[in-house]
């Protein structure tokens, strides 16, 4: 009796699928991008009559949890938008399909056309797991007029210059106001400063590297700026309206991302739009790097419709479509050819982003990075209020990072032991997923996809 039911149901379902002969592709997208992708789909479906696309929009705040729960419950879609800071995690889970072969076989996806740092953030364990969809990074938004009044006609290109400018501005604006805003509950400013160093923040063998000369230099610069009063020791929740306060000159430098281009244009009064500009990040000894952020399009390994998914990815990666997407969302395209469009090439504020994107590095490609960055923020938040020496703060961050990475070191060690042993019939069930990414090891920072999270915060605090 039960068998009869099962057959009947199977026939029914089968007939439904075969009925219109189309493949249904499920896509998860987040936030504003989720809404925008819906507008790009009809043209794709028209060009591919055999494919129907179902987009599910997830709020950013829940996307990560939903993705993990989907993985745990085997209910992931065919493809998704994935912040590239989440790529190491999902690659480690073995959830993502490697895309090298498909990219190589698709002439339209020219490697040279992508910003190298962004592309690199999608490579884990030597294999490519995502195609960049939009990018972001962080750089300086600054008050050009206040800088001029303080005696400088150009934004800084080195830390020393930056520090000089901040001191001069602070003297100019007086007590109660500051030169720069480094919100204590955001780890991105320090993360960017850390990325600008030559030494990686996490080593290939799974240790924290926060006691390196480079990171200590970054930490000293960061803490020194706050402790000397150049930056206020507050969290972003204590900022009622960041645009208002920027407009009033309460701080003149702000490290943030491309979504603020539209916000600043909208919220600062038209008469004063000339007062602000963007500039690439200054580095320790010259123009510096920044984080390689943004989102990629990924295909999940368990999908049964990878070919259809790839068609959609190829479509969305066309420069013309990326430009359309940019117009809908304000997100920056990852392809240099798309940047040649007049609205991007002709906008000096956007051009600073193009320049910075040539100098971006991914955050450490370990799944634990977000936990480590959050911990780093907690420690520096406390240190900003006291006088603990920089070396001690760095040591504390390092110690805690080592604890967070303990399991990873254990797994790396196990892999090494397994590799060194002679093959035996019992080795058949050795864990597969690790060796792929662990061989790559942690190196240059991976852009924190936290950009999306912050944008959400910015939008919430704005309204």
């Amino acid at each position, binding site marked *: 009796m039960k068998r009869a039911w099962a057959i009947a149901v199977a026939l029914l379902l089968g007939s439904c699928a075969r009925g219109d002969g189309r493949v249904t592709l499920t896509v998860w997208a987040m936030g504003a991008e989720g809404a925008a992708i819906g507008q790009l789909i009809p043209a794709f479906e028209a060009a591919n009559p055999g494919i129907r696309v179902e987009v*599910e929009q997830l*709020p950013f*705040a*829940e996307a990560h949890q*939903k993705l993990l*729960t*989907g993985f*745990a*419950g*085997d*209910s992931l879609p065919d493809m998704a938008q994935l912040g590239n800071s989440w790529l190491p995690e999902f690659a480690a889970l073995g959830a993502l399909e490697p895309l090298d072969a498909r990219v190589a076989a698709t002439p339209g996806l020219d490697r040279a056309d992508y910003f190298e740092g962004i592309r690199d953030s999608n490579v884990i364990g030597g294999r490519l797991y995502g195609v960049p969809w939009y990018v972001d990074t962080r750089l300086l938004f600054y008050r050009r007029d206040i800088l001029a009044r303080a005696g400088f006609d150009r934004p800084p290109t080195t830390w020393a210059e930056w520090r000089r400018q901040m001191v001069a501005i602070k003297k100019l604006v007086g007590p109660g106001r500051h030169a720069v805003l480094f919100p204590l509950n955001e780890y991105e400013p320090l993360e960017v400063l850390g990325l600008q160093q030559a030494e990686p923040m996490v080593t290939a063998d799974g240790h924290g590297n926060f006691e390196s000369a480079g990171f200590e230099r970054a930490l000293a610069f960061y803490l020194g700026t706050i402790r000397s009063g150049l930056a206020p020791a507050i969290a972003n929740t204590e900022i009622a309206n960041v645009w208002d306060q920027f407009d009033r000159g309460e701080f003149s430098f702000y490290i943030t991302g491309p979504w603020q281009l539209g916000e600043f244009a909208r919220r600062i009064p038209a008469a004063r739009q000339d007062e602000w500009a963007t500039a690439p990040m200054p580095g320790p000894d010259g123009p510096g790097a920044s984080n390689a952020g943004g989102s990629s399009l990924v295909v999940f390994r368990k999908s049964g419709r990878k070919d259809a998914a790839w068609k959609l990815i190829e479509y969305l990666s066309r420069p013309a479509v990326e430009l359309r997407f940019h117009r809908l969302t304000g997100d920056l395209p990852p392809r240099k050819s798309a940047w040649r469009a007049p609205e991007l090439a002709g906008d000096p504020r956007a051009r600073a982003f193009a320049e910075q994107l040539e100098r971006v590095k991914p955050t450490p490609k370990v799944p634990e990075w977000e936990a480590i960055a959050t911990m780093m923020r907690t420690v520096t938040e406390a240190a900003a209020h006291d006088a603990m020496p920089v070396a001690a703060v760095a040591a504390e961050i390092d110690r805690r990072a080592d604890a967070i990475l303990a399991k990873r070191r254990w797994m790396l060690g196990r892999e090494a032991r397994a590799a060194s042993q002679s093959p035996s019939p019992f080795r058949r069930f050795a864990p597969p997923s690790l060796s792929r990414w662990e061989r790559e090891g942690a190196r240059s920072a991976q852009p924190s996809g936290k950009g999306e999270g912050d944008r959400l915060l910015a939008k*919430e605090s704005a*309204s």
Partner: protein
Amino acid sequence: MSEPPPSPSPFPLGFAERAPSLSQWEREGGAQRRKGEGQPHKRRALPVNVAMWLLGLFAVAPLLWMVSVSLMQPGEAAHFPPPLVPHHPTIQNYVTLFTTTDMARFFLNSLILATLATVISTTFNVMAGYAFAKLEFRGREALFRWLLAALVIPAQVAMIPLFLICKELGLVNSYAGVLAPSIATVFGIFLVRQYALAIPDELIEAARIDGAGEWRIFAAIVLPSLTPILVTLATFAFLASWSDFLWPLIILNDTDMQTLPVALANLSREHVQDFELMMAGAVVTLAPVLLLFLALQRYYLGGLLAGSVKG
């Protein structure tokens, strides 16, 4: 002359052992009116009643405000001082709610799930409760004590492994997965047992002597006499399932399978500034529950009392 109250006891007695307390003070109220209250009490009546009205206001004001805001123009509530009554009442928010979000779908999901949960759990709880009360089987008492001990364990402890178990059984993202933990509840079994103990053994024995099978006895004799507790159980089950939040949140991944509480929580995080829209959503979520309660309060409150005794 009012009836003598039952013998004083430190704990409220079980449902079966005395008349539901609800009618007791209703009787008392009548007796009081018949006695005719004396003058000295009138002075104290005012503060007592004022206190009651104030507390009542505290209890019901948020709900009234919810209804009021749901009928306001979009954006009207975000003013200082906050308006209490809409200037130009409108059902626009409800229209927006049902057209731009999948509210009708979520309502249907909640309705179906709550109904299924009610039917299933009432059935199994009644069967088990009766068995624990009246049917002899080996280890009955010990088993029941274990069940009671389980009442102390917070349900959230089980949720994580339960998710993994459901994943193995392929129940993730399905109605069956949502219903799994509510198939039978210890509280329900306990409640039924309390009530079933009161069924006279002679009735059952007589039916057995007449040759009736256990299931027939259950259907013909036990169920009819358990009807009040059945309604109580069903009410509990429906309300619990309707309001259940954490488990459906975890087990359901598809947005279009969500239940009302989950959907409302998600909506409230996206539409942080849309007071009026959110209040409309809250009304839609609360209306069935409150109406059900109003209709069946006798059973609900009676069951609550019976269940408050814990061995």
